[in-house]
């Protein structure tokens, strides 16, 4: 298990997750979606740098989620 901090908008939560938990797992997690209110179309940033969905989130990381801009009119 490891601890991660997830920020979305002005809200954030700290949570214990499985050691193999990836950025993609976080972006797809219904539990995190419900807790923070983000949708399906997101990008995960660490220190402002966008992360690959397959990368395992290191212990103690603060992840900022942003709604990914789409071009729909």
């Amino acid at each position, binding site marked *: 298990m490891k601890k991660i901090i997830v920020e979305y*908008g*002005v809200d954030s939560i700290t949570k214990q997750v499985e050691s193999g938990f990836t950025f993609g797992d976080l972006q797809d997690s219904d539990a995190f979606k419900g807790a923070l209110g983000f*949708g399906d179309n997101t990008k995960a940033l660490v220190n402002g740098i966008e992360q690959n969905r397959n990368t395992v989130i290191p212990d103690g990381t603060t992840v900022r989620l942003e709604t990914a801009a789409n071009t729909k009119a």
Partner: protein
Amino acid sequence: MEKTEIILRDNGTLTERIIRERDLLAEGEVLDALTAEVTRQQRHVFAIPSWGAAHADVGVTDTLWSVPINRIPLKARFRVINGVLLPMFASLTDLEMPMVWSAPKEVRLVFAVRTTVEDDLVIVGGNWLFALDANHSGYRLPLPNLHDECTLCTGEFADSYDTALAAVSASLEQFNQSKWNADLMRTVAQSQKFFRFRPSNETFTTLPIEAADWTTLCDKVATAILDRVLL
């Protein structure tokens, strides 16, 4: 026609003067080309019930209508975070609420509508939402459904009307009824610092913007449409 004159000056020098004359075709299309960018501005052309006065910037091919507004209808999903009701545009689970955000006096909002006339019908060519500061600089609000140049994505609605009043009124009604979703969403934190409400027993109060300078939460814009906006 060309004419040559030889002039004998007082000091004895001879000077040749050639005069060429031709008629210029300063007719309709030339005048149109010269005045293509010229517009005329007229204030208080008509009043939109429950919104206010509409000002017109009339060009050769179109008219830009400006309606200064003091509120934004926000039909969107919201949740309470730390006692403050905040928009959650991307959420699929939070409660959808028809909130109305009241603009503080330093944020001057303008709803703009561009119309053209075709076959005696007034055609809506686009809707824009601008925020202006005291210096008349324009900003894109931290809202989804707004393109970079502040064009509003209002969804489908009829675009042909008998009068300009009907066209502008219909655009505002569409703005009033539209739901805000996450399309064209930027940073949600900026939205949540800008559009804030305090829930009380029976109503919601718009809270001040959570920034010393509201423009820091917006993107500055400079467009040809903005240049025609009247406040």
